[in-house]
């Protein structure tokens, strides 16, 4: 009997050490039946892309609170593409100024979530992206 699960990496690129938000999201995705590969703090874009390749994920969730998203996110998307994984959804949570959101969307980021986002919304967006709505 075949059973497919949505697989998601939750990672914190960059140097800030606050991972509570990432853990809350990881837990919510788990409770929605997803398999969450949690890679922890201080991940380089190369580490995240390598994990995405080895884990064959549907989506990558990035928590960025340091303000470095405009440097980190394009690099990660570039590496995913170089690995043949341009179909992997990239979702970003954290402190993202409003004016950056359209630019991130243009790059192909599938979702951007600021403080106060309901975890249900993130779950639904990832399910819709992976083509598995519950």
């Amino acid at each position, binding site marked *: *009997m075949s059973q497919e*699960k949505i697989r998601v990496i939750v990672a914190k690129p960059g140097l800030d050490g606050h991972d509570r938000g990432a853990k809350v999201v*990881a837990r919510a995705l*788990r409770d*929605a039946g997803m*398999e969450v590969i949690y*890679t922890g703090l201080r991940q380089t874009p*190369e580490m995240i892309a390598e994990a995405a390749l080895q884990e064959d994920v549907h989506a990558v969730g990035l928590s960025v609170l340091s303000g470095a998203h405009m440097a980190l996110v394009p690099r990660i998307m570039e590496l995913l593409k170089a690995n*043949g994984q341009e179909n992997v959804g990239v979702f970003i949570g954290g402190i993202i100024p409003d004016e950056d959101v359209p630019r991130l969307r243009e790059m192909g980021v599938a979702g951007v979530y600021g403080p106060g986002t309901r975890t249900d919304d993130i779950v639904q967006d990832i399910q819709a992206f992976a083509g598995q709505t519950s």
Partner: protein
Amino acid sequence: MTVDVQAVLAGNRLALSRLLSQVENDTLAGQHALVQLFPHGGKAALIGVTGAPGTGKSSLVNQIAYHFRHPEDGRPARRVAVVAVDPSSPFSGGAVLGDRIRMSALTGDEGVFIRSMASRGSLGGLARTTAGVVQAFDAAGFEVILIETVGAGQAEVDIARLAHTTLVVEAPGLGDDIQAIKAGILEIADILVVNKADRPGVEQTERALRNMLQLAHPGRRDFEGVTISGGGESEPIWLTPIQRTVATEGDGVPELLKLIDAHRAHLEETGDLARRERARLTVEVNLLVESSLVADWRAGISNGQYEEVLGMVFERRLSPRQAAEVLIHGEEAS
């Protein structure tokens, strides 16, 4: 979704990763690919790492893999795959797979491939499709495959029939010496590792394990009717060694690798390697026969019939055993 078996054999990492998903999901494409890959396997050293939660299995796997990649004794580096299993939630079916957090020493190395797996309801410490994932890595040319089980207590012993060499990881302060003579996980150890050996209590832990080993009677071991070690009368017997490590620092890991290689040499010299392979393949065939028989039977019976018989059990008009007879043979055996 098709699987490009040729690309997997040629070393394409994305093709391999997609194949692993097909195998994990037990799709027809995955099953078909494993059939094609089977003749290419059988070369890798399969090393199991098990033990209670918090004993430091992931950190130890990180260090073992790192030392296989950077050998101190001048031997060539070996290609290493890691299969790390963590539990699925029994309620949502979801999982948080966190073993990669401890494996950062392996990033950026093309000779390493780490794959996390959720146990998906399986109770023996591995997922039902872990054996298939291991087989895919083997065929793809990985020379060492490290299999990390879920944090195991006493009964999660499936790893012993999948791996050639099983490491059971203990840490100071986790139980008294009666725990050590109970059946189960300690019995399956080919090598016992006392990790976190810089912590207080390491002497007591090692002493309890050593006493346990002295009470044991090393000799022939059968696993589900198949002899897996000590089959020959005059063959040397493997005495389970104890190795102290501090996985976060790498202390004791080069010595542990020597023990792993020594165990491998022992398996080859005594013929136990072939015995373990036969035991593993026998179990695998039996499991597939069972699941395929069940699937065929289930396809031949309507949901209505099935529900009706179950209903009679709920009303206590049939016992579960009678119900099984009715469902399989169409009537109750007298």
